[in-house]
């Protein structure tokens, strides 16, 4: 029994390369542009009325440095769009073959369901990691273009944790695809990162203690760019542990479902 089917991995990576490139380039270019705009937006921030500046405090306040600015603009954008990309990739790894009806040709190859499962999961892991690395490098390029000093320690901490969040979304949406019916729409995968993003925004904006606990329901909390890049940072273990558990449980359930999954063509 093969742990991974190298030929299938190569084929799947090849088939996915165009989509990955489009997403990666689009988000990377957007990040570079957002960072490169920093010298121009400093003046805009200076003109913001004090009452509006108070409102912005929940979302990182008026940035003092380029890293502050990156945290509230580039970092949050990267996280939301990255999570949507990750969810679509994870879901599509299973769903695409069923939608395109290639499953009936693929799953009769002499490989175990386990080999298919691991190979497909590895493929999306590679794709999403590549996306996260290129986007982080694009951020570095943006900083280099502006030419302001940057403390790269917190930046790389954020980039690493952001990659973990993206992988969690990838694996969770992969699990969703295994647990849902074969005719499920890929857009249903987006509902998870988007809803959790809204929850994290509510938790971030509120002064209410009960609503504040919502932050533990979202993985964005332990990789919050504002927390990591702007203030005294303490790792958010609860949110991390909740999502590590959910991802692990989801993957185990997904495996059990995939092993019995019926491919109806």
């Amino acid at each position: 029994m093969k742990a991974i089917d190298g030929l299938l991995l190569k084929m799947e990576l090849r088939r996915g390369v165009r989509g990955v490139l489009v997403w990666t380039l689009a988000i990377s270019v957007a990040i570079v542009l957002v960072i490169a705009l920093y010298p121009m937006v400093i003046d805009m921030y200076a003109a913001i009325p004090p009452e509006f500046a108070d409102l912005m405090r929940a979302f990182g306040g008026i940035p003092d440095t380029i890293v502050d600015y990156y945290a509230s603009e580039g970092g949050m954008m990267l996280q939301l769009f990255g999570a949507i990309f990750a969810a679509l990739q994870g879901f599509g790894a299973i769903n695409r073959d069923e939608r395109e009806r290639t499953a009936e040709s693929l799953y009769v190859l002499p490989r175990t369901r386990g080999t298919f499962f691991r190979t497909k999961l590895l493929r999306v892991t590679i794709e999403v990691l590549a996306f996260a690395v290129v986007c982080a490098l694009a951020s570095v390029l943006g900083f280099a273009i502006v030419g302001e000093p940057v403390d790269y320690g917190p930046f790389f901490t954020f980039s690493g944790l952001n990659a973990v969040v993206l992988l969690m979304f990838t694996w969770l949406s992969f699990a969703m695809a295994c647990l849902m019916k074969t005719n499920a729409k890929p857009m249903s995968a987006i509902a998870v990162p988007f809803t959790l993003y809204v929850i994290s925004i509510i938790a971030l904006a509120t002064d209410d203690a009960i609503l504040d606990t919502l932050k533990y329901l979202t993985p964005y909390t332990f990789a919050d760019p504002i927390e990591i890049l702007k203030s005294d940072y303490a790792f958010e273990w609860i949110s991390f542990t909740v999502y590590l558990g959910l991802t692990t449980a989801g993957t185990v359930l997904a495996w059990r479902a995939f092993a019995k999954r019926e491919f109806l063509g």
Partner: protein
Amino acid sequence: MNVITVNGLRKYYGAARGLEDATLDVREGEIYGFVGPNGSGKTTLIRILAGLIRASGGSASVFGLTPGPDSARINADVGYMPGESFFYPELKVREVLGFFAAEHGVDLARRNELAGILDLDLGKRIDALSFGNRKKVGIVAAMLHRPKLLLLDEPTTGLDPLVQRLFLDILREEQKRGTTVFLSSHNLGEVERVCDRVAIVREGRIALVTTISDLATRKHKKIVVTPPRDLILDGLERRGGTATESYYEYRGETEALLRLLADADVRDVVIRDATLEELFIGHYGRGDGR
């Protein structure tokens, strides 16, 4: 030795029946037809054998192994062709078949040989292929690795008559090499040309397992004559009628029948081959003679 053994196999899709109590065996080296109308359960059985879906009850074995848990081992020696062949749409035929050849660990000579026989353009993209040409890709993909067993779901549907004949010739060649073939069809002529035995399936149940020679003895023509006439000829049997037409079954030379009809002062005649269901009407237990 049996290559396929199916015993009391059932499959339900929720409340909908797929297959009901199917029992059959396929011997090594034979071409076995699984014949019945659309929706009778043919595809369901083939998908269970290929390990794509699980049975709701009963048992099935291929090479003595259980489809599903043992499908990785079984499928090393199986060539499966679905009713509609779908492959990676953005790739060329050459790349898709190259991938399947590599997955089975065989070189590309067989791909090129089969593509040549079937006149398949390897340079075309899959999404640019017609239904029939995608079917040809399915045939090549199923036969690339010279499997011991071919599971073919309606293999000739959508192929033009010339390619159908070529394909049936290929099947006979494979049989000479010892390959076992299990094919589903609703085309009696195709089954007659190539199969050794057939199972007739209807509404999920196997109505009859028989040989092709038995099938041939049952073959007859159905005739509707307007207005009603009393016709007498060896092999011609009246099977009822109405005020406006009479129904006959005929086993014999067509020429003699045509001569009789020419002299019978009839306004209209319909002559057709009996359908599969009509051939086995005794087993199916219904029909009105037309």
